[in-house]
């Protein structure tokens, strides 16, 4: 294997590793076969595993996720692709009402081991209906696990954990990270769901970020370091299970918290995290918490407008400066 791998290639590699390991893993989605996916995140799968395990579907989001659910209930481990995360709304019934409730309302009779993968987030100028960060939609639904990796190694390790999970996982692949590169992980690399990672250590402030906001937080931390402020950066990696322990432990060192979220402030995951911190970690804080989040508008098209709405390095730096002076 090459010594670098892109995030995009890591998606296909992560799926391929699991398909080699477990014959019950099958893929379905629009254009995922011969075409390799609109984001080229399934390149090579059709060639290696053939049409019996990599299925092109019609443009039928409900049928894709509904059929994946039926297959998962009866012995398969389907990996369903929803092209853009905005389109999850077309099959929201399955994500909000069917998949996450069936185990519970049947008193534990049914297991739904499936993965719904989707390209999430903005930054590429795709306009309002192809750019939203929607992981917070899923966060409102009890019964879904939510993964959102930030690096190629995590894509592979978390894909393994997601596919092996007996619970349904919504797997957010960030469009803005697809071209980013990293070291490919060793064989059988598994990143347990619900484990955040401290990706930079620092004593002055904790920045908690997810997916595309991780590199933003890291860049902000670098700039702040030049000003004598050392930020610790936590990559949350999963929203459910939510690794509160790692965040509280980090706060024990830094006593200041900033969340960096691409999703709109209103209803964003940072609100949940911050409320848990207020409940259980109030004594750890020496300053108010701050949330840098998207504005509550449909994501606009032009770069300048998009940047105005989504958190940027500058916005994070400014927020941390203000907090350090508190």
């Amino acid at each position: 294997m090459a010594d670098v791998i892109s995030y995009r290639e890591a998606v296909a590699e992560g799926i391929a590793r699991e398909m080699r390991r477990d014959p019950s893993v099958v893929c379905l989605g629009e254009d995922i076969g011969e075409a390799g996916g609109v984001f080229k995140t399934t390149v090579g799968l059709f060639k290696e595993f053939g049409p019996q395990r990599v299925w092109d579907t019609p443009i039928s989001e409900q049928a894709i996720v509904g059929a994946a659910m039926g297959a998962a209930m009866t012995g398969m481990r389907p990996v369903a692709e929803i092209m853009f995360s905005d389109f999850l709304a077309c099959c929201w019934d399955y994500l909000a009402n069917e998949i996450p409730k069936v185990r519970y309302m049947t008193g534990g009779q049914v297991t739904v081991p499936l993965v719904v993968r989707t390209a999430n987030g903005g930054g590429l100028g795709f306009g309002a209906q192809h750019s939203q960060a929607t992981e917070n939609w899923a966060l409102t639904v009890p019964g879904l696990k939510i993964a959102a990796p930030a690096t190629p190694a995590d894509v592979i390790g978390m894909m393994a954990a997601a596919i092996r999970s007996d619970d349904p996982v919504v797997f957010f692949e960030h469009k803005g990270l697809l071209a980013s590169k990293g070291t490919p992980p060793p064989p059988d690399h598994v990143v347990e769901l619900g484990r955040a990672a401290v990706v930079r250590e620092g004593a002055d402030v904790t920045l908690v970020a997810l997916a595309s906001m991780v590199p933003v937080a890291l860049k902000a931390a670098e700039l702040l370091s030049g000003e004598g402020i050392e930020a610790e950066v936590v990559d949350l990696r999963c929203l459910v299970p939510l690794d509160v322990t790692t965040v509280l432990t980090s706060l024990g060192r830094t006593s200041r918290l900033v969340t960096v979220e691409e999703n709109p402030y209103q209803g964003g995951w940072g609100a949940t995290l911050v409320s848990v911190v207020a409940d259980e970690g109030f004594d750890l804080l020496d300053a108010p918490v701050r949330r840098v989040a998207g504005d509550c508008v449909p994501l606009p098209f032009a770069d300048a407008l998009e940047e105005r709405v989504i958190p940027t390095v500058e916005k994070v730096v400014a927020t941390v400066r203000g907090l350090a002076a508190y």
Partner: protein
Amino acid sequence: MDPAALLAAYEQMTVIRRTEKAAHDLFLQGLVKGTTHLAAGHEAIAVGASAALRPDDYVFATYRGHHHAMARGATPEECLAELMSRATGLCKAKGGSMHLTKASTGMLGSYAIVGAHLPMAAGAAWSARLRGTDQIAVAFFGDGATNIGAFHEALNLAAVWKLPVLFVCENNLYMEYTPIADVTAVARPAADRAPAYGIPGEVVDGNDVVAVQETVARLAARARAGDGPALLEAQTYRHFGHSRADPATYRPAEEVERWLKHDPLDLARGQLAEMGVAEAVLGEADERATAVVRKAVEAAKAAPPADPDEALTDVWADGGAAWRT
């Protein structure tokens, strides 16, 4: 159906009818909460279809699914205990009337979002194909579901992938309170749509258990042989309103009368008599059914109430509900 099979089907339909009557009575006594959607009048579809299926086939039903759950092996006691919020309920009292499920017998659930389970049935059929079994899947749904997007997506997917799945519409002429004919541009809301998907669409008298069994057996054999899905429209009528809250006053009296005369139980009795089965034998079947349901009511009443701690179990496969560390 030979006389023995038809007698068994008759007895099963009678058990289902009386269990639903018991559910109704228990509601009036304040022992059943929420709502129920009685299937009285639809029994021949569940029982006839089940008689044509294998025990390892999959079934997906709707909130009007008492009959399917029982036809696929759920006992009256489990069902009534579920409706009465008992710990011994079919789904530990977490499902209720609208979600009767017995996965161990292939009854993979009752879904209360209209039409949602049709793609799931297609997926279960896909899974059977992938695993190399010759199981089939069946989705039962109402006429109202034929105007839902998921219906059309499931039919197309099943057709292009040639999946072993049967879509069985229980056309009882009404959605909730609106006649299906008022909101659908074709006369037969299910069968008339089949040609658009390139699959067979058939109509059957859904109150005739023999006709249902024979039709489903034929379509099931076809699906099992790899010839793909089919859409069956079983014409029937519900004896009561849509749900508990509905007195169904919107239905013309002569229509109700005509359909009540075409009761699936009476029809089966007539067929059995024609086959030479004695009245006394039918009487014994009735008595057995009465006894089974009476015992079920007593057992469900005597069962312990649901344990509140169970509210925080079964979200995840490990049995728990934790969303954080």
